[in-house]
Every structure is written in C-alpha cells, then in structure tokens.
C-alpha cells in the first residue's frame, strides 16, 4: 500500500485517498469543437514513468491535490496543493533519462 503525501495532512495510507487521474487536463472552452471535447473526455496519455496526477484525501481533509508519481515504481517525487506547482519541479523527461 502506497504512502501518499497529502500536502495538508502529511503521509497517509493509500486507502484514505481516491485517485483522480491526469492533473494536467484542462476542460475545453464551452464552445470548443466536439473533437476537442472528445479528446478531453476520452483520450489519456499512459506514460511509463513520472505522471502528474490528482488525488483526493476523502478520509482526511477532503482536499484534492497534485502528486508526481512514477507509474512503474510507485515512487512519489512530490505533492502540492492545486494552486502551487509540484515541488520539486522535476521535468519528467529528466527523471526518465536519469533512470
């Protein structure tokens, strides 16, 4: 079971959280073409390596926040409140190259 570092509560067991998917997704403008909406709803990158994603601390502070996690190893590089950039600001490509 992973330890998820909630930026407000500290590290907690994974069972307290709900996974929220890709943190970089942005909802298209209301009048965006259908193709843009279809992409937003259905298409996801499936990176092998670092992934910025959302988690929800439902059994704790009820906050959504961002986590950068390696999808291969479950290593977590950092977490941050939604309004802040992920800390440390690792470029996923650098991490991938370093491995």
């Amino acid at each position, binding site marked *: *079971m*992973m*330890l998820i570092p909630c930026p407000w509560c500290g590290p907690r*067991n*994974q069972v307290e959280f*709900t996974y*929220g998917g890709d943190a970089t997704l942005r*909802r*298209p403008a*209301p009048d*965006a073409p*259908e193709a843009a*909406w*279809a992409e*937003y*709803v*259905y298409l996801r990158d499936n990176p092998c390596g670092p992934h910025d994603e*959302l988690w*929800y601390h*439902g059994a704790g502070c*009820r*906050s*959504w926040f961002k986590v950068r996690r390696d999808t291969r*190893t*479950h*290593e977590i590089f950092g977490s941050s409140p*939604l*309004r802040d950039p992920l800390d440390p600001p690792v470029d996923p490509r650098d991490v991938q190259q370093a491995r």
Partner: protein
Amino acid sequence: MNDTARTGERVAGSQPCRLPAGGTAIDRSRALAFEYDGRRYEGYAGDTLASALLANGVHLVARSFKYHRPRGIFSAGVEEPSALVQLARGARTEPNTRATVVELYDGLSARSQNCWPSVRFDAGAIANALSPLLPAGFYYKTFMWPPTPKAWLRYEHFIRCAAGMGRAAGEPDPDRYEHQFAHCEVLVIGGGPAGLAAARAAAETGARVVLCHQSAEFASGLGSDATIDGRPAAHWFAQTLSELRARADVTLLARTTAFGYYDDDLVAAVERVTDHLAAPASHLPRQRLWLIRARAVVLASGAIERGIAYGNNDLPGTLLASAARSYVTRYGVRLGQRAALFTNNDAAYAAALALHAAGIPVGGIVDSRPDEALRGALPALARSAGLPIVPASGVVRARGRLRVSAIDVAPRGGGATRRIDCDVLLVSGGCSPAAHLFSQARGTLRYDPAIAALLPDASPLAIACAGAVNGVFDLAHAIDDGASVGRSAVGAPGPVRHWPVPQRTVPEEPPRSPTGGAKCFVDLQNDVTVRDIAIAAREGYTLSEHLKRYTTLGMGTDQGKTGSLIGMALLAEHLRVPIADVGTTTFRPPYTPVTLGAVAGQARGAHVEPTRRTPMHAWHAGHGARFVNAGLWKRPHSYPRAGESEDDAADREARNVRANVGVVDVSTLGKIELQGRDVTELLNRIYINRWDTLAVGRCRYGVMLREDGVVRDDGTTSRLDETHYLMTTTTANAVAIMQYVERLLQVDWPGLDVYATSVTEQWAAAAISGPNSRALLARLVDVDVSNEGFPFLAVATCALRTAAGPIPARLFRMSYSGELAYEVHVPSGYGRAMWDAIVDEGAAFGLMPYGSEAMNTLRVEKGHVVIGSEIDGRTTAADLGMEKLVNPNKWCVGKPLLARAALNAPDRWQLVGLTARGGATIPRGAKIVADPDRAPRNPMLGHVTSWCASPHVGASIALALVAGGRSRHGESLWAVSPLADAWVLVDVGPSCFVDPEGGRLRA
C-alpha cells in the same frame, strides 16, 4: 481437549529416543502429552511436534503429494517440505501444518494426511509403482481426451482425491483474529545474531525499533557451542535482549513471521498469539496481523539449507544437517543408532560433530569435494575426532523402505560402490539466503558462485540485508554486519566494514549426485524429480517461470525453500548455461502460509462493513419492518402484519398511499448544503436545466450528466435563501456526488464562491404522500399548507408540533409517488419525535407507514426513473424522455458531447411502460423481443429495468428500455426470460401510468 491425551496418564516407555541429558530448548521437568494418528506420546515443554515425534522414534509422518511415498521430518523450521500434518483442536482443524513449527502443548492432537488407510500402509502408494506413467505435466497430456470440459471435470475429481493435502475445516472459524498497525523508524526482520545486533545499533540512536522473529525464542537458530569474543554466545544474546527489552521504543515480537513486503516499506507480519497454548485465555486473539510501516527495514532472515539430489533422497530418516544438529543440541533427541553425513561444504561438519558428541556414532562423512579442499577447521575437528571422511564421493542412493537403512557411496569420477549402514542420514547442499522479502521489495538477486546461491543485490525500497541473508555466515562477522546495517538504517554514520571473505565452503557445482536409478527428488513437497526437470527442459519449458508451472517445482506450502535452487542448477546444466543465466522465479507473499482468518481480522459477519441506520430505525424494527440493504443503509422494505406476506404488505401500503396517506423514511437520501455567492452558477454548470430562475422558497428537479453526456444522477435542489441551497442526491450516489462537487469546486472552478457540506446524516427525512397528506400536514406544521399558500415545489422552514413541543423543520412540497405529497426534514436528533408526531396525528387520516417496496411500486406506476435501473450508465436524458429539461441556452457538464449522432439515433433504447396482457406476470430482468421465437438468435430489442404488480393498473407493469421505444407506443412485444421459461405478451405505452397530467401533485 482430547481426553485420551492428558498429562498425568503417563505413557509407558515414552520418549525412547530422548538423549539422557542436554537440549537447550526443552524443559525436562514439564512433560506434555500429545496424540499423533491416534497414538499417545509424551514430549517436553519447548518441543515442537516434530522434535517430540522424533524423541519418540517416529520418523515416518507423511505421504508425499503425488507418489504417496513415505516421508519423514526433513527440517527443523519453516522450510519443511514433507512433514505436513493435520492439526485438530476440538472443533478446530487445520490442514498442511508444518510439524517443525508447531509448538507442543498439552493435549495436542494431530494426524497424518494424504494417506489411506494409514501412513505406514497407504493404498495410494500404487502411484509410485505407476510413476513412469506420471511424468511432469502428465495431466496436461493424458487427460485432454475427449476434449470436453465435462471429461476434464470428471478426471479432475479423481486427481484431486488422489493428490492432495489435508482437509479444510467445514465450519466457520471459531477463533478471533486481530489487526494491529505499527509505525517505526527501523523494522528488523529476524531475531538471530545479525538481527539482534541491528536492532540494538538502531535502538541506541533513539529510533523506534520493531524486531520480529518467527520462532518463540530469539537467536533460536544458534548452536550451543558458539562463542562471541571468547565467551559463550548465550551471554551476548541474553545481554542484548535485556538491553532491547529495557528500551521503551523497542517492540519485540516473538512467534511473528514477516510474510509480505509492500509499497513504501509496508510489511505484513503474523503473530501467533495462542497457537502454542493448551488453554488460551479467552480475551486473546488466536493470531494478530501486524501492518508495520517502517522508514527502513533490516532483513536479517538468515539462510536456509538445501538438500542434495540423489536416489531415494526422500526416505524418512533423512534430515538437513542443520536440522539434525538442532534436534540433538536444542531438543536432546537421539535421531538414530548410526548416522552418516552427505555434504558439499564445511559447515555441515558441525552437525556430524554434534551427533558424535551426543553419543550417536557417525558411520561416515561423504564429501563431494576432493581431499585437498577439506582444510577447514571443522573437517580438521572431525578428523581428530576420528570420524571417517570419504572425500570426492557422493551418495548414489539411499536404501530402506519406510526408513533409511544404508547408503551406497561412489567416487565422483566413477568406481566401486561401497555401502555405509546408517538409520539417519544428514544432508547439506549449502545454504541459500532467505532473501524472499528482499525479492518482494522489488530487489534483484544475483547468483554468487562462491556460495552457489542467490544473494540480495539492489532494491529501490528502504530495505537492507544483514547477516546470513547477505551471505555473511560467520557468527562474529554477522553480528558486525548487523550492527553496521542497523546503524545505517537510521541514517547514523558508522564504520564501513569490508569483510575478509571468510573460509566459505564452496559447493563448486550443483548439489546433486548420480542417481543409481532410484527416484531423485528436487522438490520433496511436490514430488518433482531430476527426471521431471529433464523432461521439462527437453519439451521447451526453459524459463524458470515456465519450468515452475509445468513441473510444479517450488509450489506448495514451502515454495521450494529447500529445492528450487537445485532445479535451477539442473536446468542450467541441461541448457549448458551458467546458473546465473537461468534466473529464478519471482518471490511473492506470503513467505510462509498465512491463515485466511488472520487476513480477515475482525472483518467478519456484521463487521465486514459499517451498518447505517436512520434515526427512526428503532421504530421500524418495533413495528415489524423487514429491512433491505440500500448500500450500507438498512431501509424498511415493508411492514407486514400478522399473516401477511411481504408482497401483500407492500401492495396494501401502496394502495393506502393512493387512497389515504402514507409515510416513508427517506433519511438515506444524499443531502448536500451549498452556500456562497456562486451556488446558482455552480448549479447551472452541473445540471442540464436552468437554476438562475429558481426563486427563494422553491425547489426544482434536476438531472446531472457525466462528461460524456450520459446521465450521472438526479434529485431535487431547493433554494432556502438567496445564497443557500440544499441539494439532494440518490441514496446510492450520495458519497460520489459529494466527491464530484468537491472536485469541481477545487480542481475545475476554484474561482467559484461555493462551500459544499454533506449533511446526509444530519437530517432525518420523512415523505408524506396521499390525498390526505395536506389535511395531516395542516395539523402538524405552523405554516399555511393550502395550495395557494404552499404550492407544488414550494419550500419553507417551519416548526413541527410534537408531543414534546415544536421542533425546527424544513417542509418541501414534492412528490415521488405521483400523489399530493410533502417531505419533512428535521435535525436527526429529532427524527424519532417527528416520526411519532406524524404517525400519531396520521391515525385519524388512515395513515400507514410504507417501505421501499411500496415506494418502488408507486414510482414505477408514476414512471419515475431510478439510479441503477433506468439511469444505468448508458442512458441519456433523451432516452429517459427528459430531453426538454436540457436548457438550450447554457453550457453544462456533458452537454458538448450530447450532440453526437449516436446519442441521438432513432433506434436508441428509450424508456417505455409495459403492461402485461391476460394477467401474466412480467419476469424480472426480462428481455424484450418482437417475436416469441425461441431460437437463440432472436434479436433483443431491449430489457425490463423495473417492474411491479401494480395495484393502480391492476396488472403486472414494467418500465423498460426498448429500441426506438417512443415510436412503439401501442405495439405489442414480448417480455421473455428463457431461464424462467416465461414468455409474456406486453403492450407498449408511455412510462407514466398514473395521472400523466400531474393534476394530483398540484391539487
């Protein structure tokens, strides 16, 4: 307790094979009685079942899995492949228990398994004679004809009877189990020399340390003659243990096996709390599952000795050398009259010396290495003790039927065979580090030819190995290694030590020997032989994972702890590659078998999940309600009266709503309070309909979509004040919608000024429905409930009169049943007072409580959709006939994709109402077809989503999703259920059967 086995009734001639003195683990002043296969024996406190059986001269304890060959006790620990027994304890029984780890208690009762009629004479042994017909993978080859599943099932029945283990208990587990969570800086796994040293070094820095050890006593694996700094090792252990016990931040867990290593250094361990006690105290759990989250883990799990493959290497009387030494020195067991040792390393000589010292003659030490390699201290000691050493030789085969009686020994290069008589044979093929948990921690293992074993290499997790598991077998070095690893585990700087590679005894080649034609086992538990490995290699199963599945090598309760490496070596030999290139199978949890009860812990029966009860639950229960689960909630299904069935009760309750008035507990509905300047904007964005037109004091039905345009949930939302709304959700979706709203507010639209709070449990709610509901309400509340004063979809806060005085309430005029109806919400603490007031006042108006079944009947009659039935994750608002709700002038979640052609196709499944003809009953979950053709390819036009026996219509009716349903009104179709053999002609019509104009609700 079995009363044939009790202390006091001394068993004559008991323990004939106990040495006259010695045995560091046993207490000779405390004799214990036990029973094995119906015979009574005696042992001592401190014995294991295995050591007590050996002390009574019982070597033959089991029959093997496949060939039913006689098997004895092979090891003295968790690695035991052979001595699996069925434990009985009153009504409890536990199969496949390793006799080597069962601590003896007074009255213990066990029996052999996988044999009939007895372990001495086993009819199944015919399999041994037929073994040429039963090679590796025989069942894949033999039982494939005829190629039908039925034939295989028939074969499988017989195979399972013939090959097998013990029998599971057929009754619920009577014991209790606990889960315990722990956090520490350093978890040390293994309480041997390295583990104790690591724990002490870590504890000295002030770190919280947990030390778990799988045996009852720490440092239990050590020989009594060991010394540390010239003093007996026992002194060092006693002192280290007392230091650790004195520290408040150190937790010592004996009888605790760490069996699983999970993400972020979470280790699962099982503590056997009462398994060793004759009469456990009732407050104690049988076992305790520990989930230990450690900042760093020190694995000091030691090493496990391997066997050697030679002919008949499974005969009872054959033991691992270290196990034999342990039985002699720790348990004072005279293992036999005359011993022999077959080894490829120096360390095993200690066992021969221990037997010699205990007065058991050693007839020969067969060493596979040449004479010039035998220069170590232990071989020298053996020489000076006069033990005959036969160098550069191997055991070809062992002789004997139910026990070894002699061995045939031949020189390695070939030559004449000589026989050595012995009734106990010690074998040692070297030691394999017990790196299982390291491997579970995604650690890689590398083959080290110096010790012919896999050593821990690197893991991405915070695990470090110390002592024998690290390949450091020497006692003093292991302690230094432990201390150094323990210090670095807490991040404390320590001296970096480089060991001079100790005089390791080197098996230069795979631990095996020529076979002499007899069966030559690699894996004792699964009866995998050298020949099976050869067959698998020849047939192309050359990856270690394939080899394992094809031959079953390394499966079973021992997971190949004593044999897999031999299999690897043999495979390498067949492939003509180095052993390192063969690779090993992945180790997975559990390291040793874990009782399912320990995994379940307290989560049994009513404790599997929480039970949620509404504030009026006690009233329902006291008035004969039958309850039904709605998620975690208990809701009244109906309130049957004496002599009434549940269906009759629901029918009566539904009729009474339409005729008089009924009340139903709707406290389980999800309720979310929304406050803030931008609630209206939020509602506009998540519901398909408009909310900026909703006045204070009014409510509205709304439908939410998922991002893909499919309906997510429905419910009403009320505007209690300018910036204060109450949203209701379906019972099932209460949590999901709250989470969804929070996600939208936090992630998508942080700029919106809205605060959302779940208040589902803070408010009790009752719906009052029926033509008499207004008259009843007028007696209960302090607001004008006339149609003009409180019209349909009005909302008000009010005071509700109760026997104890007025209580604050929210009043809503909304209807689920299609009748004139209201909902009353009060703070949950007042729920029962509200309910009592409604029931008391209602008596004069013919009020009856109704349950979820009548509620369902009423809503099906009205054509209201429900989540899970009509809102099934595929239907759009248009499919449900609610396309007019979609406001064309605003955006909402899911709307952009609603225009897709497929979501607007004319043949989409659309909501319709069905009425059965001729008094027939529409079957549950029926599919809809146009033609009652019973051919299997009859095209399906849709399916029934909800159904009821409608008192209002006087027929069986249903809601259904039917292809192009709205253009089929007036048609006749068939609702069929081939499983129930039901074929019912139904008339298709609108989904609303009651008051389609809505006159009743607005009356």
